[in-house]
Protein backbone atom coordinates (compact mmCIF):
# COMPACT_ATOMS: atom_id res chain seq x y z
CA UNK A 1 0.00 0.00 0.00
CA UNK A 2 1.30 3.43 -0.96
CA UNK A 3 1.58 5.69 2.07
CA UNK A 4 0.91 9.40 1.71
CA UNK A 5 2.28 11.75 4.34
CA UNK A 6 0.15 14.86 4.82
CA UNK A 7 1.15 15.69 8.38
CA UNK A 8 4.07 18.02 7.76
CA UNK A 9 3.02 20.50 10.45
CA UNK A 10 3.62 17.70 12.91
CA UNK A 11 7.06 16.81 11.62
CA UNK A 12 8.94 16.59 8.34
CA UNK A 13 11.28 14.12 6.69
CA UNK A 14 14.98 14.53 7.35
CA UNK A 15 16.61 16.11 4.31
CA UNK A 16 19.43 13.99 2.79
CA UNK A 17 21.60 17.13 2.72
CA UNK A 18 21.00 17.56 6.45
CA UNK A 19 21.85 13.93 7.15
CA UNK A 20 25.11 14.31 5.20
CA UNK A 21 26.00 17.38 7.20
CA UNK A 22 25.30 15.52 10.44
CA UNK A 23 27.38 12.43 9.63
CA UNK A 24 30.74 13.73 10.90
CA UNK A 25 29.15 14.68 14.22
CA UNK A 26 27.52 11.24 14.42
CA UNK A 27 30.78 9.42 13.71
CA UNK A 28 34.21 11.04 13.91
CA UNK A 29 33.46 14.23 15.87
CA UNK A 30 32.20 12.63 19.04
CA UNK A 31 33.84 14.80 21.67
CA UNK A 32 31.88 16.62 24.35
CA UNK A 33 31.79 20.23 23.26
CA UNK A 34 32.42 21.31 26.87
CA UNK A 35 35.73 19.40 27.05
CA UNK A 36 38.96 21.32 26.69
CA UNK A 37 40.82 18.71 24.65
CA UNK A 38 40.96 18.60 20.86
CA UNK A 39 38.02 16.18 20.58
CA UNK A 40 35.88 18.60 22.52
CA UNK A 41 37.15 21.61 20.60
CA UNK A 42 36.22 19.95 17.29
CA UNK A 43 32.66 19.55 18.51
CA UNK A 44 32.65 23.03 19.96
CA UNK A 45 33.78 24.47 16.64
CA UNK A 46 30.95 22.73 14.81
CA UNK A 47 28.46 24.14 17.32
CA UNK A 48 29.88 27.65 17.02
CA UNK A 49 29.65 27.50 13.24
CA UNK A 50 26.07 26.31 13.54
CA UNK A 51 25.25 29.13 15.92
CA UNK A 52 26.66 31.64 13.42
CA UNK A 53 24.69 30.12 10.55
CA UNK A 54 21.37 30.17 12.42
CA UNK A 55 21.93 33.68 13.82
CA UNK A 56 22.46 35.05 10.33
CA UNK A 57 19.14 33.67 9.11
CA UNK A 58 17.23 35.89 11.54
CA UNK A 59 19.68 38.82 11.75
CA UNK A 60 20.63 37.98 15.33
CA UNK A 61 24.01 37.86 17.04
CA UNK A 62 25.59 34.45 17.54
CA UNK A 63 25.57 34.81 21.31
CA UNK A 64 21.82 35.32 21.23
CA UNK A 65 21.23 31.74 20.03
CA UNK A 66 20.59 29.07 22.68
CA UNK A 67 20.24 25.45 21.69
CA UNK A 68 17.52 23.33 23.29
CA UNK A 69 16.18 19.82 22.78
CA UNK A 70 12.79 20.83 21.39
CA UNK A 71 10.46 23.68 20.59
CA UNK A 72 8.51 22.80 23.72
CA UNK A 73 11.63 23.17 25.84
CA UNK A 74 12.47 26.47 24.17
CA UNK A 75 8.93 27.76 24.76
CA UNK A 76 9.00 26.63 28.40
CA UNK A 77 12.42 28.26 28.86
CA UNK A 78 11.13 31.48 27.32
CA UNK A 79 7.97 31.72 29.42
CA UNK A 80 9.25 30.44 32.76
CA UNK A 81 12.81 31.73 32.42
CA UNK A 82 11.71 35.27 31.56
CA UNK A 83 8.98 35.30 34.20
CA UNK A 84 11.37 34.25 36.94
CA UNK A 85 14.18 36.58 35.87
CA UNK A 86 11.88 39.60 35.61
CA UNK A 87 9.61 39.00 38.58
CA UNK A 88 10.80 42.16 40.30
CA UNK A 89 9.34 44.16 37.40
CA UNK A 90 5.90 42.56 37.51
CA UNK A 91 3.93 39.33 37.48
CA UNK A 92 1.59 39.66 34.51
CA UNK A 93 1.88 37.76 31.22
CA UNK A 94 -0.24 38.04 28.10
CA UNK A 95 -0.69 35.21 25.63
CA UNK A 96 -3.46 33.91 23.37
CA UNK A 97 -5.92 31.06 23.69
CA UNK A 98 -4.53 29.27 20.64
CA UNK A 99 -0.89 28.91 21.66
CA UNK A 100 0.91 25.59 21.66
CA UNK A 101 0.42 23.55 24.83
CA UNK A 102 4.05 24.16 25.81
CA UNK A 103 3.25 27.86 26.15
CA UNK A 104 -0.18 27.39 27.71
CA UNK A 105 1.01 24.81 30.23
CA UNK A 106 4.05 26.93 31.15
CA UNK A 107 1.62 29.81 31.79
CA UNK A 108 -0.62 27.56 33.89
CA UNK A 109 2.44 26.54 35.91
CA UNK A 110 3.28 30.19 36.51
CA UNK A 111 -0.31 30.95 37.56
CA UNK A 112 0.15 28.41 40.34
CA UNK A 113 3.24 30.31 41.38
CA UNK A 114 1.85 33.78 41.79
CA UNK A 115 1.75 35.06 38.22
CA UNK A 116 -1.31 36.39 36.45
CA UNK A 117 -1.94 35.43 32.85
CA UNK A 118 -4.32 36.99 30.33
CA UNK A 119 -5.36 34.65 27.52
CA UNK A 120 -6.45 36.72 24.52
CA UNK A 121 -9.40 35.65 22.40
CA UNK A 122 -8.99 35.24 18.66
CA UNK A 123 -11.40 35.80 15.78
CA UNK A 124 -12.78 33.09 13.50
CA UNK A 125 -9.52 33.09 11.53
CA UNK A 126 -7.40 32.79 14.66
CA UNK A 127 -6.14 36.37 14.73
CA UNK A 128 -5.82 38.28 18.00
CA UNK A 129 -7.55 41.61 18.45
CA UNK A 130 -5.18 44.57 18.94
CA UNK A 131 -7.63 46.54 21.04
CA UNK A 132 -7.97 43.59 23.35
CA UNK A 133 -4.19 43.30 23.55
CA UNK A 134 -3.82 46.98 24.45
CA UNK A 135 -6.54 46.70 27.09
CA UNK A 136 -4.83 43.67 28.59
CA UNK A 137 -1.52 45.46 29.15
CA UNK A 138 -1.04 46.83 32.63
CA UNK A 139 1.80 48.16 34.78
CA UNK A 140 2.73 44.63 35.87
CA UNK A 141 2.95 43.15 32.37
CA UNK A 142 6.42 41.76 31.78
CA UNK A 143 5.90 39.39 28.86
CA UNK A 144 3.72 39.01 25.77
CA UNK A 145 3.93 35.63 24.04
CA UNK A 146 2.04 35.22 20.77
CA UNK A 147 2.81 32.49 18.27
CA UNK A 148 3.83 33.55 14.75
CA UNK A 149 1.76 30.96 12.90
CA UNK A 150 -0.76 28.62 14.45
CA UNK A 151 -0.05 24.91 14.20
CA UNK A 152 -3.68 23.86 13.63
CA UNK A 153 -4.88 26.68 11.40
CA UNK A 154 -1.74 28.12 9.84
CA UNK A 155 -2.93 31.65 10.64
CA UNK A 156 -0.05 34.16 10.72
CA UNK A 157 -0.31 36.86 13.39
CA UNK A 158 0.76 40.44 12.71
CA UNK A 159 3.96 39.83 14.65
CA UNK A 160 5.77 43.06 13.79
CA UNK A 161 2.89 45.17 15.06
CA UNK A 162 2.57 43.14 18.25
CA UNK A 163 6.33 43.32 18.83
CA UNK A 164 6.35 47.07 18.35
CA UNK A 165 3.45 47.47 20.75
CA UNK A 166 5.36 45.45 23.34
CA UNK A 167 8.54 47.45 22.81
CA UNK A 168 6.72 50.78 23.21
CA UNK A 169 5.43 49.55 26.56
CA UNK A 170 8.82 48.12 27.60
CA UNK A 171 7.41 44.58 27.65
CA UNK A 172 9.40 41.57 26.49
CA UNK A 173 7.94 39.92 23.40
CA UNK A 174 8.31 36.21 22.68
CA UNK A 175 7.01 34.43 19.63
CA UNK A 176 6.79 30.71 18.95
CA UNK A 177 7.91 30.69 15.31
CA UNK A 178 8.13 26.92 15.01
CA UNK A 179 5.60 26.80 12.15
CA UNK A 180 6.53 30.09 10.46
CA UNK A 181 10.32 29.89 10.39
CA UNK A 182 11.49 28.75 6.98
CA UNK A 183 8.35 30.06 5.27
CA UNK A 184 8.77 33.79 5.83
CA UNK A 185 11.80 36.07 6.26
CA UNK A 186 12.17 36.86 9.95
CA UNK A 187 14.44 39.73 10.91
CA UNK A 188 14.33 39.91 14.70
CA UNK A 189 15.89 43.38 14.75
CA UNK A 190 13.56 44.91 12.18
CA UNK A 191 10.49 43.18 13.59
CA UNK A 192 11.38 43.93 17.20
CA UNK A 193 11.23 40.33 18.40
CA UNK A 194 12.98 39.85 21.75
CA UNK A 195 12.71 36.09 22.10
CA UNK A 196 11.82 33.47 19.49
CA UNK A 197 11.47 29.70 19.24
CA UNK A 198 12.60 27.68 16.22
CA UNK A 199 12.46 23.89 15.84
CA UNK A 200 14.59 21.72 13.57
CA UNK A 201 12.23 18.89 12.70
CA UNK A 202 9.60 21.23 11.25
CA UNK A 203 12.03 22.29 8.52
CA UNK A 204 13.40 18.91 7.46
CA UNK A 205 15.99 18.96 10.21
CA UNK A 206 16.53 16.39 12.96
CA UNK A 207 14.22 15.86 15.90
CA UNK A 208 15.66 16.83 19.27
CA UNK A 209 17.12 20.11 18.05
CA UNK A 210 15.68 23.57 18.55
CA UNK A 211 16.71 27.13 19.22
CA UNK A 212 15.65 29.87 21.54
CA UNK A 213 16.77 33.24 20.28
CA UNK A 214 17.10 35.66 23.21
CA UNK A 215 18.02 39.28 22.63
CA UNK A 216 21.08 40.18 24.73
CA UNK A 217 19.05 42.83 26.55
CA UNK A 218 16.53 40.29 27.85
CA UNK A 219 17.01 38.78 31.29
CA UNK A 220 16.24 35.06 31.36
CA UNK A 221 16.85 32.38 33.97
CA UNK A 222 17.66 28.77 33.12
CA UNK A 223 15.06 26.07 33.66
CA UNK A 224 17.48 23.19 33.16
CA UNK A 225 20.45 23.20 35.49
CA UNK A 226 23.77 21.58 34.86
CA UNK A 227 27.16 22.79 33.76
CA UNK A 228 27.92 26.10 32.12
CA UNK A 229 26.73 25.04 28.68
CA UNK A 230 24.91 27.63 26.59
CA UNK A 231 26.46 30.43 28.63
CA UNK A 232 24.94 29.10 31.85
CA UNK A 233 21.40 29.33 30.47
CA UNK A 234 20.80 25.70 29.56
CA UNK A 235 22.63 22.87 31.26
CA UNK A 236 23.33 19.55 29.55
CA UNK A 237 25.79 18.20 27.01
CA UNK A 238 25.17 19.77 23.63
CA UNK A 239 23.62 17.59 20.94
CA UNK A 240 26.35 18.28 18.39
CA UNK A 241 24.85 16.25 15.53
CA UNK A 242 21.39 17.70 16.12
CA UNK A 243 22.73 21.23 16.23
CA UNK A 244 24.76 20.78 13.04
CA UNK A 245 21.70 19.27 11.36
CA UNK A 246 19.50 22.09 12.55
CA UNK A 247 21.90 24.68 11.15
CA UNK A 248 22.01 22.91 7.80
CA UNK A 249 18.21 22.68 7.76
CA UNK A 250 17.99 26.42 8.48
CA UNK A 251 20.44 27.17 5.68
CA UNK A 252 18.46 25.06 3.21
CA UNK A 253 15.15 26.50 4.39
CA UNK A 254 16.41 30.01 3.66
CA UNK A 255 17.93 29.00 0.33
CA UNK A 256 14.76 27.26 -0.90
CA UNK A 257 12.14 29.38 0.84
CA UNK A 258 10.83 31.14 -2.24
CA UNK A 259 10.51 28.04 -4.40
CA UNK A 260 9.10 25.97 -1.53
CA UNK A 261 6.47 28.59 -0.71
CA UNK A 262 5.49 28.84 -4.35
CA UNK A 263 5.11 25.09 -4.66
CA UNK A 264 3.22 24.79 -1.39
CA UNK A 265 0.80 27.54 -2.38
CA UNK A 266 0.03 25.84 -5.70
CA UNK A 267 -0.34 22.42 -4.07
CA UNK A 268 -2.59 23.85 -1.40
CA UNK A 269 -4.85 25.70 -3.83
CA UNK A 270 -5.16 22.57 -5.94
CA UNK A 271 -5.91 20.40 -2.93
CA UNK A 272 -8.48 22.70 -1.34
CA UNK A 273 -10.23 23.32 -4.64
CA UNK A 274 -10.49 19.61 -5.39
CA UNK A 275 -11.40 18.67 -1.82
CA UNK A 276 -14.28 21.13 -1.61
CA UNK A 277 -15.58 20.34 -5.09
CA UNK A 278 -15.48 16.57 -4.71
CA UNK A 279 -16.79 16.20 -1.16
CA UNK A 280 -20.03 17.73 0.12
CA UNK A 281 -20.25 19.72 3.31
CA UNK A 282 -16.57 20.46 3.86
CA UNK A 283 -15.69 23.69 5.62
CA UNK A 284 -12.19 25.14 5.32
CA UNK A 285 -11.34 26.96 8.55
CA UNK A 286 -9.27 30.14 8.62
CA UNK A 287 -9.91 30.63 4.94
CA UNK A 288 -7.73 33.72 4.67
CA UNK A 289 -4.58 34.80 2.82
CA UNK A 290 -3.01 35.68 6.20
CA UNK A 291 -1.90 32.11 6.71
CA UNK A 292 0.50 29.38 5.78
CA UNK A 293 -1.23 27.77 2.79
CA UNK A 294 0.15 24.32 3.51
CA UNK A 295 -1.76 23.98 6.79
CA UNK A 296 -5.36 23.14 5.94
CA UNK A 297 -7.95 22.85 8.68
CA UNK A 298 -10.97 21.08 7.23
CA UNK A 299 -14.29 20.28 8.90
CA UNK A 300 -16.18 17.30 7.46
CA UNK A 301 -19.71 17.77 8.72
CA UNK A 302 -21.16 14.73 10.46
CA UNK A 303 -17.85 12.88 10.71
CA UNK A 304 -15.77 12.39 13.82
CA UNK A 305 -12.27 13.74 13.22
CA UNK A 306 -10.48 11.00 15.09
CA UNK A 307 -12.43 8.29 13.31
CA UNK A 308 -11.60 9.90 9.98
CA UNK A 309 -7.90 10.17 10.85
CA UNK A 310 -7.91 6.50 11.90
CA UNK A 311 -9.72 5.38 8.76
CA UNK A 312 -7.36 7.41 6.57
CA UNK A 313 -4.40 5.87 8.38
CA UNK A 314 -5.76 2.38 7.71
CA UNK A 315 -5.81 3.38 4.03
CA UNK A 316 -2.31 4.85 4.05
CA UNK A 317 -2.96 8.58 4.42
CA UNK A 318 -1.38 10.33 7.40
CA UNK A 319 -3.13 13.45 8.70
CA UNK A 320 -3.98 14.59 12.22
CA UNK A 321 -7.01 15.72 14.17
CA UNK A 322 -7.76 19.38 14.45
CA UNK A 323 -9.80 18.44 17.44
CA UNK A 324 -7.12 16.68 19.39
CA UNK A 325 -9.11 13.81 20.80
CA UNK A 326 -7.28 10.83 22.16
CA UNK A 327 -8.53 7.41 23.04
CA UNK A 328 -8.30 8.33 26.69
CA UNK A 329 -9.90 11.75 26.64
CA UNK A 330 -12.81 12.89 24.56
CA UNK A 331 -11.84 16.54 24.39
CA UNK A 332 -12.14 19.18 21.73
CA UNK A 333 -9.17 21.18 20.43
CA UNK A 334 -8.65 24.43 22.32
CA UNK A 335 -7.84 26.12 19.00
CA UNK A 336 -11.09 25.05 17.35
CA UNK A 337 -13.00 26.15 20.42
CA UNK A 338 -11.21 29.52 20.41
CA UNK A 339 -12.16 30.29 16.79
CA UNK A 340 -15.78 29.65 17.70
CA UNK A 341 -16.50 26.29 16.10
CA UNK A 342 -19.43 24.41 17.58
CA UNK A 343 -18.57 21.21 19.43
CA UNK A 344 -19.99 19.23 16.52
CA UNK A 345 -17.81 20.98 13.96
CA UNK A 346 -14.74 21.08 16.20
CA UNK A 347 -14.77 17.33 16.60
CA UNK A 348 -15.34 16.94 12.84
CA UNK A 349 -12.14 18.79 12.01
CA UNK A 350 -8.85 17.41 10.80
CA UNK A 351 -5.55 19.07 9.92
CA UNK A 352 -3.99 18.29 6.57
CA UNK A 353 -0.51 19.76 6.24
CA UNK A 354 1.32 19.56 2.95
CA UNK A 355 5.06 19.39 2.47
CA UNK A 356 7.50 20.31 -0.25
CA UNK A 357 7.92 16.64 -1.17
CA UNK A 358 4.22 16.02 -1.84
CA UNK A 359 3.16 15.53 -5.47
CA UNK A 360 -0.11 16.27 -7.28
CA UNK A 361 -0.52 12.56 -7.84
CA UNK A 362 -0.32 11.96 -4.09
CA UNK A 363 -2.91 14.65 -3.49
CA UNK A 364 -5.26 13.10 -6.06
CA UNK A 365 -4.91 9.71 -4.40
CA UNK A 366 -5.37 11.21 -0.94
CA UNK A 367 -8.55 13.01 -1.97
CA UNK A 368 -10.00 9.79 -3.40
CA UNK A 369 -9.27 8.03 -0.10
CA UNK A 370 -10.65 10.92 1.97
CA UNK A 371 -13.81 10.95 -0.16
CA UNK A 372 -14.35 7.22 0.32
CA UNK A 373 -13.60 7.36 4.06
CA UNK A 374 -15.89 10.34 4.68
CA UNK A 375 -18.65 8.63 2.74
CA UNK A 376 -18.29 5.41 4.76
CA UNK A 377 -18.36 7.26 8.08
CA UNK A 378 -21.31 9.38 7.03
CA UNK A 379 -23.24 6.22 6.13
CA UNK A 380 -23.68 5.49 9.80
CA UNK A 381 -23.20 8.96 11.21
CA UNK A 382 -25.89 9.78 13.74
CA UNK A 383 -25.70 13.50 13.06
CA UNK A 384 -25.02 13.92 9.36
CA UNK A 385 -28.00 15.29 7.56
CA UNK A 386 -30.37 14.15 10.24
CA UNK A 387 -32.57 15.74 12.80
CA UNK A 388 -31.19 14.98 16.17
CA UNK A 389 -33.65 14.25 18.87
CA UNK A 390 -32.16 15.32 22.11
CA UNK A 391 -33.53 14.44 25.46
CA UNK A 392 -35.00 17.89 25.74
CA UNK A 393 -36.84 18.74 22.57
CA UNK A 394 -35.90 18.48 18.92
CA UNK A 395 -33.48 20.54 16.94
CA UNK A 396 -31.94 20.61 13.47
CA UNK A 397 -28.27 19.96 12.95
Amino acid at each position, binding site marked *: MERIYLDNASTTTLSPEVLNAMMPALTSVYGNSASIHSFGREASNLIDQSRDTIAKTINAKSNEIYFTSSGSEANSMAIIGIANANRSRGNHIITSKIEHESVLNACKYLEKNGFQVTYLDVDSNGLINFTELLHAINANTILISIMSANNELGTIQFIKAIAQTAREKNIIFHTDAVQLYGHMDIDVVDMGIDVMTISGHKINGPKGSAVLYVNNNVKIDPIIFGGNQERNKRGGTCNTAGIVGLAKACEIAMRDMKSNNHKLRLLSEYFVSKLTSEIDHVIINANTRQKLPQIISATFVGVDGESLVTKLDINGVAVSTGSACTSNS*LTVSHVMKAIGLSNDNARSTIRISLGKNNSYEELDNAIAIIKKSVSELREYS*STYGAKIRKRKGDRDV
Partner: protein
Amino acid sequence: MYNNIIMNIFSNPKNSGRISKPDGIFDMYNADQTAHVEFSLRIDSGIIMQCKFRAQANPYIIAVCSKITEVVTGRMANMLFIDSLSVKKALEDESDIDIEFCLDCLKGAVRDYQEKLAKNNA
Protein backbone atom coordinates in the same frame (compact mmCIF):
# COMPACT_ATOMS: atom_id res chain seq x y z
CA MET B 1 -3.42 4.04 20.21
CA TYR B 2 -6.22 1.48 19.97
CA ASN B 3 -5.82 -2.23 20.47
CA ASN B 4 -6.35 -4.69 17.62
CA ILE B 5 -9.84 -5.69 18.77
CA ILE B 6 -11.03 -2.10 18.67
CA MET B 7 -9.33 -1.45 15.33
CA ASN B 8 -10.85 -4.58 13.80
CA ILE B 9 -14.35 -3.67 14.93
CA PHE B 10 -13.90 -0.05 13.83
CA SER B 11 -12.72 -1.20 10.40
CA ASN B 12 -15.77 -3.41 9.99
CA PRO B 13 -18.44 -2.42 12.51
CA LYS B 14 -21.35 -4.79 12.88
CA ASN B 15 -24.96 -3.60 12.87
CA SER B 16 -24.22 -0.04 11.78
CA GLY B 17 -27.12 2.02 10.41
CA ARG B 18 -30.72 2.47 11.47
CA ILE B 19 -33.58 -0.03 11.48
CA SER B 20 -36.47 1.21 9.38
CA LYS B 21 -39.63 1.65 11.45
CA PRO B 22 -37.89 0.67 14.68
CA ASP B 23 -39.83 -0.45 17.74
CA GLY B 24 -37.54 1.65 19.91
CA ILE B 25 -35.05 4.37 19.05
CA PHE B 26 -33.00 6.90 20.98
CA ASP B 27 -30.01 9.13 20.41
CA MET B 28 -27.90 11.26 22.71
CA TYR B 29 -24.64 13.10 23.25
CA ASN B 30 -22.17 12.29 25.99
CA ALA B 31 -21.85 14.79 28.83
CA ASP B 32 -19.31 17.08 27.17
CA GLN B 33 -20.93 16.71 23.74
CA THR B 34 -17.88 15.19 22.09
CA ALA B 35 -19.64 12.04 20.90
CA HIS B 36 -23.16 11.31 19.67
CA VAL B 37 -24.75 7.88 19.31
CA GLU B 38 -28.11 6.40 18.32
CA PHE B 39 -29.56 2.94 18.89
CA SER B 40 -32.58 1.52 17.10
CA LEU B 41 -34.30 -1.73 18.07
CA ARG B 42 -36.60 -4.32 16.50
CA ILE B 43 -38.38 -6.14 19.29
CA ASP B 44 -40.66 -9.12 18.92
CA SER B 45 -42.55 -10.63 21.89
CA GLY B 46 -40.30 -8.66 24.22
CA ILE B 47 -37.10 -10.07 22.71
CA ILE B 48 -34.60 -7.81 20.96
CA MET B 49 -34.43 -9.35 17.51
CA GLN B 50 -32.21 -6.69 15.98
CA CYS B 51 -30.19 -3.75 17.26
CA LYS B 52 -28.42 -1.18 15.11
CA PHE B 53 -26.36 1.87 15.92
CA ARG B 54 -25.28 5.10 14.30
CA ALA B 55 -22.60 7.36 15.71
CA GLN B 56 -20.50 10.42 15.24
CA ALA B 57 -17.77 9.35 17.57
CA ASN B 58 -14.21 8.14 17.75
CA PRO B 59 -13.20 4.57 16.87
CA TYR B 60 -13.41 3.48 20.48
CA ILE B 61 -17.03 4.54 20.90
CA ILE B 62 -17.91 3.02 17.54
CA ALA B 63 -16.40 -0.29 18.67
CA VAL B 64 -18.33 -0.04 21.95
CA CYS B 65 -21.61 0.55 20.10
CA SER B 66 -20.96 -2.30 17.70
CA LYS B 67 -20.20 -4.63 20.60
CA ILE B 68 -23.35 -3.55 22.45
CA THR B 69 -25.54 -4.36 19.43
CA GLU B 70 -24.15 -7.89 19.41
CA VAL B 71 -24.50 -8.39 23.15
CA VAL B 72 -28.15 -7.29 23.36
CA THR B 73 -29.48 -9.21 20.37
CA GLY B 74 -31.65 -12.11 21.56
CA ARG B 75 -32.13 -10.75 25.06
CA MET B 76 -35.34 -9.70 26.81
CA ALA B 77 -35.85 -5.95 26.44
CA ASN B 78 -37.55 -5.58 29.81
CA MET B 79 -34.81 -7.40 31.70
CA LEU B 80 -31.85 -5.83 29.98
CA PHE B 81 -28.77 -5.32 32.07
CA ILE B 82 -25.35 -4.62 30.60
CA ASP B 83 -22.56 -3.04 32.59
CA SER B 84 -19.77 -1.03 31.08
CA LEU B 85 -17.09 -3.26 32.59
CA SER B 86 -18.29 -6.29 30.65
CA VAL B 87 -18.21 -4.29 27.42
CA LYS B 88 -14.69 -3.05 28.18
CA LYS B 89 -13.65 -6.58 29.02
CA ALA B 90 -14.98 -7.80 25.66
CA LEU B 91 -12.89 -5.12 23.97
CA GLU B 92 -9.87 -5.94 26.17
CA ASP B 93 -9.61 -2.26 26.95
CA GLU B 94 -8.41 -0.79 30.20
CA SER B 95 -8.86 2.92 29.50
CA ASP B 96 -10.96 5.00 31.85
CA ILE B 97 -13.00 6.50 29.05
CA ASP B 98 -16.66 6.85 29.98
CA ILE B 99 -18.93 4.63 27.91
CA GLU B 100 -21.94 4.80 30.22
CA PHE B 101 -23.67 7.20 27.85
CA CYS B 102 -23.74 4.46 25.18
CA LEU B 103 -25.56 2.20 27.62
CA ASP B 104 -27.83 5.08 28.64
CA CYS B 105 -28.67 5.56 24.98
CA LEU B 106 -29.54 1.88 24.62
CA LYS B 107 -31.76 2.14 27.70
CA GLY B 108 -33.39 5.18 26.07
CA ALA B 109 -34.24 3.06 23.03
CA VAL B 110 -35.75 0.36 25.27
CA ARG B 111 -37.70 3.00 27.16
CA ASP B 112 -38.99 4.36 23.85
CA TYR B 113 -40.20 0.84 22.99
CA GLN B 114 -41.88 0.48 26.38
CA GLU B 115 -43.62 3.85 26.06
CA LYS B 116 -44.89 2.99 22.58
CA LEU B 117 -46.08 -0.37 23.85
CA ALA B 118 -47.88 1.21 26.79
CA LYS B 119 -49.52 3.71 24.46
CA ASN B 120 -50.69 0.97 22.11
CA ASN B 121 -52.04 -1.07 24.99
CA ALA B 122 -53.88 1.90 26.47
